[in-house]
């Protein structure tokens, strides 16, 4: 009996050390999500889901196999709920991987594609048909639609990534003195007319983590979280973020964990 008491206390103390963002009632957030919801009706990104599905089941690459043997964390071929738990630690690579890095691992190891070539084309040019990786990432995520984001910091490397992400989110650098939090830490802020999501607000961060990959109106293509992070570093005037880098996965781990509980509804629709 007494021992349970101790364990419970430890659990509470440990849990509070992670301090996920507090839920707040935020009017701007509501306005923002209503606007986005209106845009989301008739989302051209839906077309990418079918393309991704075809690519997933097709025998492709030098080894001419489908991606059905790829394990996204819940077992080979099990897609339902998989992206809700990503990034996660994978025993075979002994790394924390997000959806895109896991996907590339499988396309290389199972299908025999060349890693460098995949990475080079992963983020497609605006106005193009989009890349295979973008379509696949959307298809796989869409299989978790309606399910809740549910990252676990159960593995030491997950906790390491989470903490690194938190550090990076607040780390200012460069000639603009920006860290992420300068643009994503307050309610009702805009850069020119672009609404800035306040990622320290539980509701708003949930809206973010549940809507990627997303159709980006300005580019006429589906974009992924890897692209979004790259683009924010570009605005910050920092060097170019490498696709699938640990920095990107640390930030995604941090953001996704903060958004736990959000109901996935990919593709989102972004300006």
């Amino acid at each position, binding site marked *: 009996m007494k021992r349970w008491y*101790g364990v419970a206390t430890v659990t509470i103390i*440990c849990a509070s050390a992670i301090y996920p963002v507090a839920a707040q009632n935020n009017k701007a957030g509501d306005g923002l999500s209503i606007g986005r919801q209106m845009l989301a009706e008739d989302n051209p990104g839906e077309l990418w889901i079918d393309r991704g599905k075809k690519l997933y089941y097709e025998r492709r690459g030098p080894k001419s196999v489908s991606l059905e043997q790829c394990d996204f964390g819940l077992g080979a071929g099990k897609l339902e709920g998989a992206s809700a738990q990503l990034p996660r630690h994978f025993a075979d690579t002994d790394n924390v991987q997000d959806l895109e890095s896991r996907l590339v691992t499988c396309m290389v190891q199972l299908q025999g594609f060349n890693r460098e070539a995949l990475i080079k084309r992963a983020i497609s040019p605006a106005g193009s048909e989009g890349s295979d990786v973008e379509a696949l990432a959307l298809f796989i995520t869409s299989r978790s639609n309606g399910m809740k984001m549910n990252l676990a910091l159960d593995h030491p490397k997950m906790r390491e990534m989470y903490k690194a992400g938190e550090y990076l989110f607040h780390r*200012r*650098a460069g*000639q603009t003195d920006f860290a992420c939090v300068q643009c994503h830490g307050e309610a009702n802020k805009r850069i020119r007319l672009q609404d800035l999501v306040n990622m320290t607000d539980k509701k708003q961060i949930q809206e973010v983590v549940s809507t990627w990959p997303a159709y980006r109106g300005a580019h006429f293509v589906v974009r992924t979280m890897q692209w979004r992070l790259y683009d924010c570093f570009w605005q910050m005037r920092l060097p*170019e973020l490498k696709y699938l880098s640990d920095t990107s996965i640390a930030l995604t781990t941090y953001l996704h964990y903060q958004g736990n509980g959000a109901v996935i509804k990919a593709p989102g629709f972004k300006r």
Partner: protein
Amino acid sequence: MRRARFKWMALGLLVASGCATFPDQATTRQTAEQMLSEDFTAPSPALLKRLAQDRSQQICSKIGSTKLTEEEAAEVVRLSRESIRYPSSGIFAGDWKRGNTLAHDGAGDRIQFGKLEGRKENGGLCQNCHALAPGEINVGNVGPSLTGYGTQRGNSEAIAKYTYEKIYNAWTYFPCSNMPRLGATGHLTPEQITHMVAFLIDPQSPINKK
């Protein structure tokens, strides 16, 4: 009494073993800095150095609701003061027309597809964060409105100097604020800053029109 103390020690140990699995601050910093050193590309090694932090940026990267200590704030202000270089002309207010253009220019110095944005000069970025002339709609609100700035404060030498210093290094007057230290970090030149000072305080400037 002794038993109670023992109980707390035991609990402390439990907490330590249960939570030690979260890396401590120093380890986290090391891990993350290591990542940063490997995870970016730039057209030249000099540009890669943009990722390095100066002392003020380190101090100003607090996590969550952690507050600046008084000593830290004082250090940031001291470093800011030391950073300021004045225009060689000795005149704080330049050409408001050029300032107008610069204040509305958000481009310059970005890196994409292995190239540095090719441009004669960097934009001032002001419009991204501040309301400027009355009636302008495409303006940000990360910073306070600057509409009517000169009408409210006049265009005395003291105001011109304050405004110059504020744009050169915003942290002189507000340590760690969200406004970039545009002169101190090299984003803008002293001369460019004088034009933006004129844009803010000159009675002829659109910012001070009704």
